[in-house]
Structures are given as C-alpha cells and as structure tokens.
C-alpha cells in the first residue's frame, strides 16, 4: 500500500498502463489516504468509487484533487465561501472534463481561500488548511488545500488556480511543484471567476515530470472559453540533462529587501546550481515589476467586484431570509455570505471602478500592466528565463499576518508580475531554510518564468534544475 502511494503520477500511470497495478486498487489506496486528512485540506472527498469507469488515456486510473473553485456536476462546489454552501453545479468545468477524458478521476475537492482571495488559506469559510510540514503554519494560498494534499501524501496530484500566485506560492510553502501556465493555455470554463483577465488553471505535483503530464492533458482550446488557445505543439515529458546555452535573468528590482535570509541563501545557492549545470546567470533591470502589487491590487479587486455581483441570493447559493424588500435581501445576503477579505476586495474594486476614480486607478493600473509586459518582452530578447524566489518567506504561522491585509498582499511580490504579463511560471522546491523567527527548516521555492506559450522549454529547464538540486525532503521525514 505504502509503495503505491510513493509512486509519482508518471510512474503509477505507466504501471497501470502495463497492467502491473490495477486502476481500482490504486484509486482505493488514495481514497484511504484522503480519508485520513488531518490538515482540513479536503472539503469533500469521493466515498463510493465503485461506479468509476476508467477512461483510457495518459492519466488512466490517476486520482486528482481538485480545488473547490472548479464546478463539478452534482458534487458540492463552494469556492471556500459560505455563500455557496450546499451548491451543486449543474455542469463540470472543462479542465476537470479534460482530466476525466485522459483517464483521471476526481478524488476530492480541496479547501481554499474564499473565491481564491488570499495567500494563506486563512480566508476559507471552512477553516484554514494546515501546512503538512508544521501544523502551526499556513500552507499558502489560495490553492492551499491542493498544495497540502500533494505535500502531505493525501493525493498524488492536484489542480489549482493562480491569479497572482495562488498555485506557485502554496507550492513553494509546501515543498512541491506548482505551474501557472500562460494565460489562455487552459480553458477557464466552469472555473468560478475571481479576476477573469488573470485567472489560470494549473497543476500542483510532486515533480516537474508530473506537472508536464498533467499540463499535456489540461491544455487546449475550448469553444466554451473564447480566451483559451491551448499550447501549440503540445507538451511532452521533459528530459533535458543540463542548462547549457540557457540564460537566466535575475531582476534587480525583485531582489531587494523584504526577503528572509534563509530564502535568499537558498535562492543564491540555486543560482550557483544553474551555473554548474551550464546555465548563465546575470542581473537585469525589470523596472516596473516592483509596481506589480499596486497594479494587481487595483485590477484583481476591480474584476472581482464585477464577477462577484452574481452572488445576490436569487439564482443559487445562500439567501438571507429576513429581508423586508429586494434591496435589503441583496445587501443582507452578501453581508452574511461573504467573509472579510472578499468584502474588502469588493469594496476596493468597486471604489476603483467608481465614477471619478476609474482613470486614476483602473486605467493607470492597466498602463502599468502594459509596462510590466514590455519589461518581460525586453528581458526575453536577451534571456531565456527570468528567475526569482517564489515567496519572500517560508511558511508563516497561522494568524501571523491576518491583522494586516497589506502585509499579506506583499507575499505575492514575486509572483504577481508574471500574472500581469500573462506569462508561464513554475515554482520548484529548491531547498530548506529556517524561518526568520527560528524553528525547524521549511521548504523554499524557486520561480522560473518563460515567454508566453514556452511551457515546454520552461518544463525542460525546470526538470534539469530539479535533477541538479535533488530535493527529496518530505514533511515529518528526514532531510533528503
């Protein structure tokens, strides 16, 4: 049993395809593991798998944990919000359908920050997820449940969504691989909208090979999402052995203060590793990247305030029962149904879009976004990749940053610029570091960003670096 759970997705899929293990046996083993969730990582998990019909495909028999932001027909889908408690969607998200068609099967729905707004999973209406490395710490967010189940041995792989870092940051804090593909690589149909111009689905996995395998099943143009285009040429298993001839840019503007000493140490050691593997590392200006947070916290809340207008107690979800008239019903339903962070962002976004402020906030932020995208394009003229730490710190303590929204937002400092530019970026575990306040060592993620739709190239480099680093530490285990 334990041996089954030790297999990577690629290994398990190969064994299932070769008939060495049965799909049913493998799924049941993971069901058993998921049932032992002590991290509050699952909001729902499949109980009866007997009706499971295995589709033939590259992911035949693979259980997948799905962030609770993806609609799944007939099973609860809450987006971590009280306002969608008990909601069972009448249709399934394209991303989940594509995994199904490739032979995979939903193992459970994972906990998350409400409507994907947060960097610690503490904004879930259903309680925070605990970091499998240290139950007193956050797993990151907003895809905190998806990261925790993979790191904690409760699922072999997961999908999440990334709007400003929500796949990469929790992957970093949990010591696993998280990939945010290019905007448009994967359909957003059936993915509950937060900020539509930024939201993108992606895999959270144990290693880069598994990320590639999942991306190959997930990507593609979908007639139900007119912004989806897929990845031309498809995705194959990465096999690069070194980084020779590749140039890695370190943005000077993103290497400043605010980074924990331990994170900086691991980051610098990883840059050396890149050079040992034949890659070239140089500093490069990315002058507008430091304004990413400001632009992001205008654009994302603005889009959210519009997207979340649909939760009004009329067509689905909770409704406040005591209201005397329609307006009061709307206002009370939303006051009772949304948590503090969601309200904050709705207010921020509504303000930024309101008459008299639109140009100063939203207009200006979209111009900053243009400049950030231009900075990246210029960088990619001389470099293959841009690299940063994924997060300025290792996993922080539960409750440590909840009192200061802005401090929480600054967690996204390294991940937001890529989101604004729409380019792909991956976080891979690069080492362990002691938290600033002391304590046992925790994982540190290394972020690699590539030009739009250069996912194959990105995965090749991440694979070569992953092999070079040889990160094998597991929560609660010996150092690798």
């Amino acid at each position, binding site marked *: 049993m334990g041996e089954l759970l030790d297999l990577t997705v690629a290994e398990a899929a190969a064994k299932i395809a070769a008939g060495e293990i049965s799909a049913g046996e493998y799924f049941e083993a993971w069901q058993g593991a998921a049932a032992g969730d002590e991290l509050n990582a699952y909001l729902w998990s499949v109980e009866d798998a007997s009706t499971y019909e295995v589709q033939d495909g590259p992911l035949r028999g693979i259980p997948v944990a799905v962030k609770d932001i993806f609609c799944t027909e007939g099973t609860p889908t809450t987006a971590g919000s009280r306002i969608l408690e008990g*909601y*069972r*969607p*009448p*249709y399934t998200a394209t991303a989940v359908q594509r995994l199904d068609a490739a032979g995979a099967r939903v193992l459970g729905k994972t906990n998350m920050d409400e409507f994907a707004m947060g960097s610690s999973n503490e904004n879930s209406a259903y309680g925070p997820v605990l970091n499998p490395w240290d139950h007193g710490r956050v797993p990151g967010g907003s895809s905190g449940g998806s990261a925790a189940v993979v790191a904690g041995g409760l699922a072999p792989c997961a999908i999440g969504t990334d709007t400003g870092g929500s796949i990469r940051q929790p992957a970093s804090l949990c010591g696993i691989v998280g990939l945010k593909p*290019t905007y*448009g690589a994967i359909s957003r149909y059936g993915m509950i909208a937060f900020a539509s*111009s930024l939201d993108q689905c992606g895999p959270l996995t144990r290693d880069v090979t598994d990320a590639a395998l999942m991306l190959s099943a997930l990507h593609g143009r979908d*007639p139900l999402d*007119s*912004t989806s*285009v897929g990845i031309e040429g498809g995705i194959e298993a990465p096999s690069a052995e070194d980084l020779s001839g590749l140039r890695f840019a370190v943005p000077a503007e993103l290497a400043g203060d605010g980074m924990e000493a331990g994170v900086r140490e691991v980051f610098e050691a990883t840059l050396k590793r890149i050079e040992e593997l034949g890659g070239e590392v140089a500093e490069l200006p990315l002058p507008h990247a430091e*304004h990413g*947070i*400001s632009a992001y*916290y*205008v654009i994302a809340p603005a889009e959210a305030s519009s997207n979340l207008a649909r939760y*009004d*107690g*009329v*067509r*689905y*979800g909770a*409704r406040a029962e005591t*209201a*005397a*008239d*329609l*307006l*009061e*019903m*709307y*206002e009370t339903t*939303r*006051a009772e149904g*949304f948590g503090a962070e969601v*309200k*904050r962002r*709705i*207010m921020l976004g509504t*303000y930024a879009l*309101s008459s008299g402020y639109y140009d*100063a906030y939203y*207009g*200006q*932020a*979209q*111009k*900053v*976004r*243009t*400049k950030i*995208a231009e900075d990246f394009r210029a960088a990619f003229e001389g470099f293959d990749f841009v690299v940063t730490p994924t997060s300025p710190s290792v996993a922080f303590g539960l409750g440590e940053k909840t009192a200061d*929204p*802005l401090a929480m*937002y600054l967690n996204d400092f390294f991940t937001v610029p890529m989101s*604004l*530019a*729409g380019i792909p970026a991956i976080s891979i575990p690069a080492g362990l570091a002691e938290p600033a306040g002391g304590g046992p060592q925790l994982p540190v993620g290394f972020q690699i960003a590539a030009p*739009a739709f250069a996912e194959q190239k990105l995965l090749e480099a991440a694979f070569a670096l992953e092999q070079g680093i040889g990160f094998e530490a597991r929560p609660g285990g010996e150092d690798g």
Partner: protein
Amino acid sequence: MPRVIDREQVLHVARLARLRLEDGDVERMTGELSGILEHVDRIAELDLEGVEPTSHVVVLENVLRADEPRPSLAPEQALASAPDPDRGAFRVPSPQADA
C-alpha cells in the same frame, strides 16, 4: 494623516456594491482601504502618458464561432439551486417593502 478614503465614501461604495456594513465594519474598512490605497497610489506618480492600457495579455483577434443552436441547461436544472424557485421562475422579495 488624512485618510485616502473617508467614512461617507465607504458607505457610498458599500451601497454601490450592495453590501451592508455594520457600524464597526465601516470604521475598520475605512482604515484598511486607506492603507491599501496609500500603497496603490504609488503608481499614480509614474509618468505613463501615451502608454496603451492592457486590454488582453494574449494577442487574439475576432474570435468567432458559427451561430448555431445548441443544447443548454433545462429549466429545471437551472432552477435546481435557486433559494426560492416558483413556477419556472426565480421568486424574490418585492422591490418595495410595503407593496
């Protein structure tokens, strides 16, 4: 230091957003939004005259499809999650309290 956004503005925005705020929430929200907006206001100082605002990050033009009828959700499916479905429609409280 004067706040970027005051109590009256917060109440106005809450009305626009159809969000009822309790008295205590208004005070806290005013402080928090002011703090965030102060940070965000740094981009107001950038000279971006003539820069085209981003409308979409991937170059896409005229994504069209054939205008063909296709199945959609049946009415009973669309109403299945409604808090108060009634004869094929969504029932809501009256817009006027005493109507």
